[in-house]
């Protein structure tokens, strides 16, 4: 469109031969020489020009705003909103549980089941003293203490002083076991020759009752070896340590440990808890509502909520103490270790010691210890050797002093 005229004189605007001064002058004096657009028209044009520049700036802010609106719209969609709400709920729940241990029983459950039974507990072999001794009511235990003693354990189980179910392995895991290979003279494989192999007999997890019982039996009957003399010392030590109660565990976990340590029923309860904690809790509650029919059930109930329990011997109920719970564990262990069929339905008419147990102020169980047997008033009684009974009485006196 444009032409370079720098080299062509004819194209040089300075030498424009076509410009006519006469015509230019005539144009300059033409009537419309001073014509100008109306002021309104000029204002309208300028206004539109300014509006165009303002509109050019506006889209930037509108674009930024529309970005937020798009995000908001995306969040407002039901699917996204539901997902976001789920994440928020999960976050709130997670924060609520922050710092609190997970249900310890859930984590321990596989370990309990996976650990092979230790010969020290599950198949605690009878000591030479026990083996040398003929089967007596003191060392015979029913296969199912909670159940009616109708099924006697096999002979191998009779030799087993400390019957334990084959699945019990919590004790060896928690405390370094003290193997007692010398006691396994029957040659029975761990967990197979014990009473627990035939029936879910209560486990022996707390060495304390056995330690006490061993002391009692050693004092009373030197011929009979303590059934769980080989129980792990660390656990016994741990059970004795008052600091254990102050261990950094939750209250529930501590109660479960106590229950597990105190007796077979506690062990059963704790074994049930890992698999289904809420049902176990429900069972425990319903269990506590009714009167415990067996010592195991009683121990389990006390182990779950010991603060709700009290004992009474001389008229004034007092809060249950760990010593008394250990004594109850002793009793339960002794009755479990008793020869099958050594149960009796009648109490002796001689001198007896009575221990009443209250739950929430309501009499829940009465334990009678006479000179021939021991057991709950409403439940079956187990005949024990006089020496064992004497030791239990002494221990009861000590625990309730």
């Amino acid at each position, binding site marked *: 469109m444009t032409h370079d005229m720098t080299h062509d004189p004819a194209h040089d605007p300075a030498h424009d031969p*076509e410009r*006519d001064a006469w015509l230019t002058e005539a144009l300059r*004096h033409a009537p*419309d020489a001073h014509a*100008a657009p109306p002021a309104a028209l000029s204002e309208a044009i300028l206004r539109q020009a300014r509006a165009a520049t303002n509109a050019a700036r506006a889209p930037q802010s509108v674009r930024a705003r529309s970005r937020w609106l798009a995000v908001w719209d995306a969040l407002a969609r039901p699917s996204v909103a539901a997902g976001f709400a789920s994440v928020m709920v999960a976050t709130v729940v997670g924060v609520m549980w922050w710092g609190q241990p997970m249900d310890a029983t859930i984590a321990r459950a596989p370990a309990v089941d996976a650990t092979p039974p230790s010969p020290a507990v599950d198949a605690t072999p009878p000591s030479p003293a026990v083996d040398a001794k003929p089967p007596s009511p003191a060392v015979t235990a029913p296969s199912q203490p909670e159940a009616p003693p109708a099924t006697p354990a096999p002979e191998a189980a009779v030799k087993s002083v400390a019957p334990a179910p084959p699945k019990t392995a919590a004790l060896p895991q928690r405390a370094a076991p003290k193997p007692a290979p010398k006691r396994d003279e029957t040659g029975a494989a761990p967990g197979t020759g014990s009473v627990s192999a035939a029936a879910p007999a209560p486990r022996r997890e707390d060495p304390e009752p056995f330690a006490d019982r061993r002391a009692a039996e050693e004092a009373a009957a030197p011929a009979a070896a303590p059934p769980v003399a080989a129980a792990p010392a660390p656990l016994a030590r741990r059970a004795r340590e008052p600091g254990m109660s102050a261990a950094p565990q939750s209250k529930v976990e501590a109660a479960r440990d106590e229950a597990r340590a105190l007796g077979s029923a506690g062990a059963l309860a704790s074994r049930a808890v890992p698999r289904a904690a809420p049902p176990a809790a429900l069972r425990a509650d319903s269990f506590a509502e009714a009167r415990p029919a067996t010592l195991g059930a009683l121990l389990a109930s006390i182990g779950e909520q010991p603060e709700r329990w009290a004992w009474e011997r001389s008229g004034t109920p007092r809060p249950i103490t760990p010593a008394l719970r250990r004594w109850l564990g002793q009793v339960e262990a002794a009755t479990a270790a008793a020869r099958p069929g050594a149960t009796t339905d009648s109490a002796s008419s001689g001198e007896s010691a009575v221990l009443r147990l209250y739950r929430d102020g309501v009499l829940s169980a009465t334990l009678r210890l006479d000179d021939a047997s021991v057991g709950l008033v409403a439940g079956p009684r187990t005949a024990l050797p006089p020496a064992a009974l004497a030791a239990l009485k002494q221990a009861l006196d000590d625990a309730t002093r």
Partner: protein
Amino acid sequence: MLMTAYAGGDARAFEQLYARHQAGLYRFIRRLLGSALNAQTDEVFQDTWLRVVHARARWEPQGASFRTWLFTLAHHRVVDMLRRSGREVSIDAFDGEDGAPWEPGVNASATAWQHWPAPAAAASHTEEIAFWRRAGEKLLGCLEQLPLPQRSAFLLHHDDGLALDEVAGALEVGFETAKTRLRYAMSKLRTCMGAYLAPFSAAGSEPR
């Protein structure tokens, strides 16, 4: 520069552009449209400026000045308006009344124009002004007789002061084409004006 500033969002730059070119553009459009479409001047004028506003983002000064571009837009709008009004718009630069190409030496009226008399030097100032006003009126009438290409070339060259190359650029034609259109226009205008100014041929002088 101003147009670039306006394209960047500076509204004041547009105001300066408008103040600088609005009078010449308005006059150019008015004279191109002629007396018959004089009422459309405002519309074409506004449309031209709005084209500038809307085309600001695409503005790229590639050799042509803003003024050249502005008059190009106005010329297009005028052509559109003339076509909408039902008038035949010839874009042939050689469309003359006789249909023959212009030749300076052959055109008889050109000779007469060269001797076009100016107002007498002794004439009074008032008479001189009156003379040029009548000349201006006559020239507007003569302009309307020109084809649009010649008219636009003459107006851009003589009224708005564009150089020939700028005229060619504004009309989007070649330099020679613009030059030829201009010569045709001047020849016809001289003939037209010479006949009108014959009674004043007393003494030849240049316009002051």
